[in-house]
């Protein structure tokens, strides 16, 4: 993947805020979840074709996450619901009041287990086919040390599906066995949570995304570094990489030129690079070497990026952002001093 050649190849401007997206394995359909509480399906083979909206009997608030499993799309939202959709008929199959508070993220294992996290601080496990609740567990305090309700933003699965990680507002990561739901390890990233005791008396930040390294031994955590003025996303964007076994922090990567939250992280299949996306009032996508923490490339985007799809095999990238949907290409290699190896 030629990072330095990354650019927007097509951009759609919308009125809404887009929080998440999914693409089918054939790469010919894209879905995104919107602040208008709808899901939209867009053809990638015919990009100018009409979008299909999945709205009726659907969510009643922001759609914050989605996954594709065969012909089924599962979405989650601020309405505390998980909804299963038939992607052919575009109709809902199942609608569950899944959490007691706002659902932030979902992911699915190849063997058909769906995981969800929400601000009730619970991680819940569902049978993908039946929608039955398999388990509910938590290692995250319901209130912050400063007595306010906390949030559980981040969820990740290891590539082999055997491990699960959850991350919250105050910088606590729990790593679980995804079958037994026993906690295996934990990681602390307190710097991602800024509490202002003096000027404004509330907090900002939190762990916004987690990502296992392809070999499952490392964990990347994304958020924002310390902030002075918590009225704004005014802190450096931040990635921390840990050795899961020992809990040792291997890298702390901050970029003060690209402020705000890191909302999405993806490791390259060889584990050598990490892609991050997020933003403040604008967006960015950055590429870092995982061994050294060095930033090899960064591009800016006109909207804060909430959702990311990367396919390293096909060199495909899509982002769901504030009032933007974008398709990215890795174009022709640029003539730079360092040639980034393709993966």
């Amino acid at each position, binding site marked *: 993947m030629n990072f330095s050649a990354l650019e927007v190849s097509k951009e759609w401007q919308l009125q809404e805020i887009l929080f998440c997206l999914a693409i089918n394995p054939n790469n010919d359909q894209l879905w995104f979840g919107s602040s208008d509480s709808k899901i939209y399906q867009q053809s990638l083979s015919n990009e100018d074709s009409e979008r299909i909206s999945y709205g009726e009997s659907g969510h009643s608030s922001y759609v914050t996450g989605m996954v594709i499993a065969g012909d089924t799309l599962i979405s989650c939202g601020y309405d505390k619901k998980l909804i299963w959709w038939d992607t052919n008929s575009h109709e809902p199959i199942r609608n569950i009041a899944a959490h007691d508070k706002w659902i932030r993220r979902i992911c699915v294992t190849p063997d058909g287990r769906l995981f969800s996290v929400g601000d009730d601080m619970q991680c819940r496990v569902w049978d993908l086919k039946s929608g039955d609740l398999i388990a509910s567990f938590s290692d995250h305090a319901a209130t912050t040390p400063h007595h*306010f309700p906390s949030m559980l933003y981040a969820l990740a699965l290891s590539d082999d599906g055997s491990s699960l990680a959850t991350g919250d507002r105050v910088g606590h990561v729990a790593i679980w066995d995804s079958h037994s739901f026993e906690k295996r390890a934990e990681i602390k990233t307190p710097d991602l949570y800024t509490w202002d005791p003096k000027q404004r*008396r509330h907090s900002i930040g939190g762990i916004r995304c987690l990502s296992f390294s392809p070999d499952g031994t490392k964990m990347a955590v994304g958020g924002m570094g310390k902030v002075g003025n918590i*009225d704004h996303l005014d802190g450096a964007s931040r990635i921390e990489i840990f050795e899961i076994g020992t809990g040792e922090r291997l890298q702390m990567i901050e970029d003060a030129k690209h402020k705000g939250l890191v909302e999405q992280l993806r490791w390259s299949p060889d584990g050598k690079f990490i892609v991050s996306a997020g933003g*403040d009032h604008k967006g960015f996508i950055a590429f870092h070497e995982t061994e050294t923490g060095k930033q090899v490339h960064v591009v800016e985007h006109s*909207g804060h990026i909430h959702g990311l799809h990367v396919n390293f095999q096909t060199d495909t990238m899509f982002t769901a952002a*504030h009032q933007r949907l974008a398709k990215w290409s890795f174009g022709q290699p640029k003539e730079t001093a360092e040639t980034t190896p393709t993966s």
Partner: protein
Amino acid sequence: MANHADSGHPKQSDSLDRRSMMRLMGSASGIGLAANMNQITALGESRLNDQLRASGKRVILLWLAGGASQLETWDPKPGRPTGGPFAQIQTTVPGIGISELMPKMSTHLEDTAIIRSLNTKIADHGTAYELMDTGRVKEAGVDFPHLGAILARELGNIESKVPDYVSMYTSTEGRRKGSAGFLGGRYNPMFLTDAMMPENIQRLESITDTDHRERAELRDTLSKLFARHHSHPSFEGHNSAYGRVRGLMASDYLFDIEREPESIRAQYGPTQFGQQCLVARRLVEAGVPFVKVARAWWDSHGQNFETHQELCADLDHCMSTLLDDLKERGLLENTLVISLGEFGRTPSINGSLGRDHFASAWSCTLSGCGIQGGSVYGKTDENGNTVVEGEMSAGDLYSTIFAALGIDHTKEYMLGSRPIPIADFDSTPCYSILT
């Protein structure tokens, strides 16, 4: 500063325009020229004011500094592009919903009126603060008293042993003291910032209580001897200030919440705002007529929803607990609780998932004394961009507050020969939310 009615001059009637009135009053009247409040107070008090004081009305202002979002509190627009992600929940008032971030208040509206139609036009912190803390746009060259000073004067007792205007503002952002303006230093606030105990209210250890008291008595005796041959309101005001010292020192316990049973403190909860609300209840219970508790800082230009999750939880819990506590103690019917900021927040959501300053259509609440509980006044359009019904100005809000407390909202203070109404010109109370 007396009412016209008390001056011996004809009560101002509609047929007399202001200018003619001023010519009548002219510079011959001693009222406008008397330089000292104490003298006027002694002269100008009507029986109504005495009754008012006797009935002991109090005010607690929960000041939502920085501008709380009306869309995440009292006037949600779920499902609209401007509505944000939070749902609306039904309240105990039929047909009225508020944000799901305020679940406790949803069952506590029986004594509360929500005003959804404030249009105050000013959207910068400093100017908007002046506007909302005085009820009028700041006029260069006029030092208008802030709400606390007005109410300290109207509701308080001039020789009060407890403070009459206490203001708590602990955060540093947006911290402003409030002033008595032309009402004079007597009505300045007791201003608590870093410490919860007012400054210099506790006796130094190096002097015994007996010495402290006897020293004060010595001072008082000598001053009285002086006053026998030199009487002047300035000297009286000076003595009056010293006269209040021991009483105020004796009220230091009011600020000490350790004196409350653990169960009560637990009800208010562990946050600083909760603790200060508890202090406010103690103060009004002891007869302090006006307490302002600032909860800063709501200015969520970025991450509006996350910030409101925290701050609304605090407001929801502390406000409902305060209302319950006042009610149980039989205080709510004589205490007006106001929740108010300097403006609201934009319906449109910016790229950082924030909302910016917005003063064209926003909300506040009034609870308790003189208020028709369970009422909602005013409407905004479906997206919350404009007021479509019942537009209210800052002056109208102040008129409403005064009316709820039984204070004549048309009352005027005399600044020299210039009458200045306590509520801004052409403002009217919102009678539909008053009992």
